[in-house]
């Protein structure tokens, strides 16, 4: 039986991410790799929106 994929952990650069819709910091990392390699995918617990966060500032 193959173990399940791990929940991704936030790298140090992504500790202060805010929701791009409501500015909440109550967000969870969904995927370390988003629509392009330079993005991570987050979900906001406050407004239930998904948003991309650009890795390199």
């Amino acid at each position, binding site marked *: 039986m*193959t*173990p*399940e*994929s*791990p*929940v*991704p*952990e*936030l*790298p*140090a*650069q992504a500790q202060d991410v805010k929701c791009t819709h409501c500015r909440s910091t109550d967000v969870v990392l969904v*995927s*370390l*790799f*988003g629509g*392009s*390699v330079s993005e*991570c995918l987050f979900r906001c617990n406050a407004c239930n929106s998904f948003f991309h966060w650009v*890795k*390199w500032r």
Partner: protein
Amino acid sequence: MPDVQSTPADQARYDEILCIADTKLVLAGWHMITIPNGRAIADWNAICGMMQAHYGHARALYAYLARYGLTRADAEWNRSAMEIRSADILDKPPSSWTDLIVSTHLVERAVSTLICAYQDDADDQLARLAGKIRAETEFHFSYLKGWLKVLASSRREELERLATSRTGAMLQWWGPDGSQDTPHALGQRQLTRKQMRSAFLGDARADAVACGFTLREESAPAANWHQPTMRVSREGLPPRLFEQIRFKNTELAMP
């Protein structure tokens, strides 16, 4: 190195950066082949992302080497299996999902250690490129360490066995103690190869401890290590691997 006027220092830098780029090229090829083995959509997504990053890094490094005469056609299409300078560890395909995660983690650690030695280089283009590669690689480590923790709790014996044998293979990349270190001797990088080997091993061990398993060092013989290619094997890439990773449709890709 292509036929351009160059100094021994240029040659040393060219050789080392090409080894990094080619290792990323072949690691990207590994990911391309192993995408269907992803355990969940998140894994497909991660492997696709890492593959895209490695191809991008390889191509950026090839573009950097254009100043030494390397053309895109030579970098991507014209070289034979004998001329690809990827790390020996990638010659042997992953035998399982655990092996894929372990091997990818070790290759990323080693390549990251070497490219980071150029982060403060006097050549601003290479320094910034090294910084970007390091930053992206942190996201790869985050994904890989997540899997290492899962495997340490569910398949510890297999994980430790593979980690030991693959660490030995990865250590070959740095060459035997006392081997020549021309880039350092000629002032192309500050850190010695021995220091980087030690840093690589220290980081790999620290990751293992953080993920809940033990990494044992098992040095493989590296007597035939060849500095310009950082390889022990002189036979080039295995034919099947080369056939799978080489770019085939030049006429479609060339502008």
